[in-house]
């Protein structure tokens, strides 16, 4: 790309300070941050000053800014749908939207329709889906032609501040720090929180699960995991999927693993912690003879790769897969809703 694309960022939270700004700094030949907007917190001005960008308190200023080619939506999830639609209709060349695309099925269709109608390139911040190691794991799977017999997703996350320190000297922030533990005895609240955890946390890996098990069928179990987490078992395309995630106050380094069992192999894909840039996930394969092969990590991580994907779309070297993006979003929503329903049903 001859001239860096102008990026306007909606949102100025830790995801911008510790994730997207350091990531874009690694792609400076392709992207230049030109405007950052917050919701009135004042953080945008501080962040914008560091990168020589303009700032505002109003997200619509980003969409209206003629120097903005790419609108990066890093705001709270409930705002995503409206911001995607508005940016597409205003003629943004491309949109980068953090997960989830929208909070409802109607919202997903509306956002996708707006982008498709205007030919707006769209990338969702599902960094694990873009991680080069996932492509390698999929390649291994397709090459072996062994049917998938099960998938397990395992997460354990200490506070993000540990990883923020690796990429920014901003004062540490952790959204979960100090937050009171939910009242899990309130089963309606538990159902709602588990739904939110599926859409906010498990959503990182559900597009990967969908790659292998696209047809969601039913939830077999769902429950909360104290202090804040959930465990959901579901069947998709006849394949059992076990998913467990918990946010912890400290302790061991982050665990973020997708394990695929086929008729012949077990494949572990171990993703690095969020925010950091130390290469891709690591893929380890144990085959039928008991041989264990660990593939080296790529230099690029999923964050870099998702912005590269956006470059590719803007350059016209690939087309946005609107239907795939919509299907990923619906898949997550279907599982989140079914998990919440299961908890309500068990309580009744």
């Amino acid at each position, binding site marked *: 790309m001859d001239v860096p694309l102008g990026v306007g960022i909606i949102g100025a939270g830790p995801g911008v300070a510790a994730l997207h700004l350091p990531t874009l700094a690694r792609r400076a030949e392709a992207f230049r941050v030109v405007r950052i907007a917050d919701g009135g917190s004042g953080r945008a001005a501080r962040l914008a000053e560091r990168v020589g960008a303009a700032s505002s308190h109003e997200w619509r200023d980003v969409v209206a800014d003629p120097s903005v080619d790419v609108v990066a939506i890093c705001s709270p999830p409930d705002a995503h749908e409206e911001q995607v639609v508005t940016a597409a209709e205003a003629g943004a060349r491309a949109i980068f939207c953090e997960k989830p695309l929208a909070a409802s099925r109607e919202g997903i269709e509306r956002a996708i329709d707006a982008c498709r109608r205007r030919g707006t390139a769209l990338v969702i911040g599902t960094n694990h889906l873009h991680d080069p190691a996932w492509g390698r794991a999929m390649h291994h799977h397709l090459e072996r032609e062994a049917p998938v017999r099960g998938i397990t997703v395992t997460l354990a996350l200490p506070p993000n501040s540990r990883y923020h320190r690796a990429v920014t000297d901003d004062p540490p922030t952790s959204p979960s720090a100090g937050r009171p533990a939910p009242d899990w005895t309130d089963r309606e609240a538990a159902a709602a929180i588990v739904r939110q955890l599926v859409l906010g946390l498990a959503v990182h890996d559900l597009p990967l699960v969908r790659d292998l098990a696209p047809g969601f069928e039913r939830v077999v179990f769902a*429950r909360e*995991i104290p202090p804040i987490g959930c465990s959901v078992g579901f069947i998709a395309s006849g394949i*059992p999927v076990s998913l467990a995630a918990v946010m912890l106050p400290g302790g061991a380094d982050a665990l973020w693993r997708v394990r695929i069992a086929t008729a012949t192999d077990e494949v572990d894909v171990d993703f690095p912690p969020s925010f950091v840039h130390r290469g891709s996930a690591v893929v380890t394969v144990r085959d039928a003879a008991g041989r264990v092969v660990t593939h080296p990590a790529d230099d690029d991580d999923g964050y870099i790769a998702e912005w590269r994907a956006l470059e590719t779309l803007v350059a016209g070297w690939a087309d946005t897969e609107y239907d795939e993006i919509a299907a990923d979003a619906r898949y997550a929503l279907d599982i989140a809703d079914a998990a919440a329903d299961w908890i309500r049903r068990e309580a009744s």
Partner: protein
Amino acid sequence: MKVPVCAPDAAFRIAVAELPTSATPTRDERGAVVVVRSVDDVAGAVARGASAIVVADGASAASARGTDLLAASTVPLVISRPRLRRDDEAALVTAAFSYVSIDVAAACAERADAAADAMGWARELLGGPLAPRAGAGGLALLDGPRGEAVAVRISETAPGRAAALRIEAVGEVRVRIDAGEARGAARIAITDAAGTRIAPTPWESPERHALRRALAAVAGERITDAADLAADVRAAAGISGTDNEA
């Protein structure tokens, strides 16, 4: 004093030779530690006067019928479960876990005992038996003794392939156990804020380990293998396709 051991199985005879100051081989079952191949041989050994029994093929007992047969024994029972070595490092970790994620990949014939061994690891890590809560289609949710989530996924592999067990206990301290090679010890990794350490390999053969425990039982040590296996079999029973959904 050396304890007489009646061990028709070659591997156990080697184990006797590897305990030269505490065990001595004998062909007379009366008053001896008797090694039997299968759970079906337990009653006979008891009737012939065994002082303690080692069941060499723990898989033969990994069923409701098998555990019923064990429960009828009036002498101490050691059940050899090489995938579940009770003196392994992981059993010493007393951290609080938020959840345990279990994957079992096994051929159809090995499925029940592999699942029971995986349940055994979770029981050891959580310090008590598991209670089935829901399950269907190769998935199960169980509650740990303090209400911890135990999520299980079981899948079928090609016949003849060794089972693969992955048990991951997750909290501020994590314990990951990979077990399943026919004679290989489980690989145990313990991770906390200071990093990961791998538990030392137990170099002792599974047979010597089982026999040593039987000798300890004769000396008065309490052995709970039969009750533990019964608990593990009950926990595993909910996994194999029994629909029990909310």
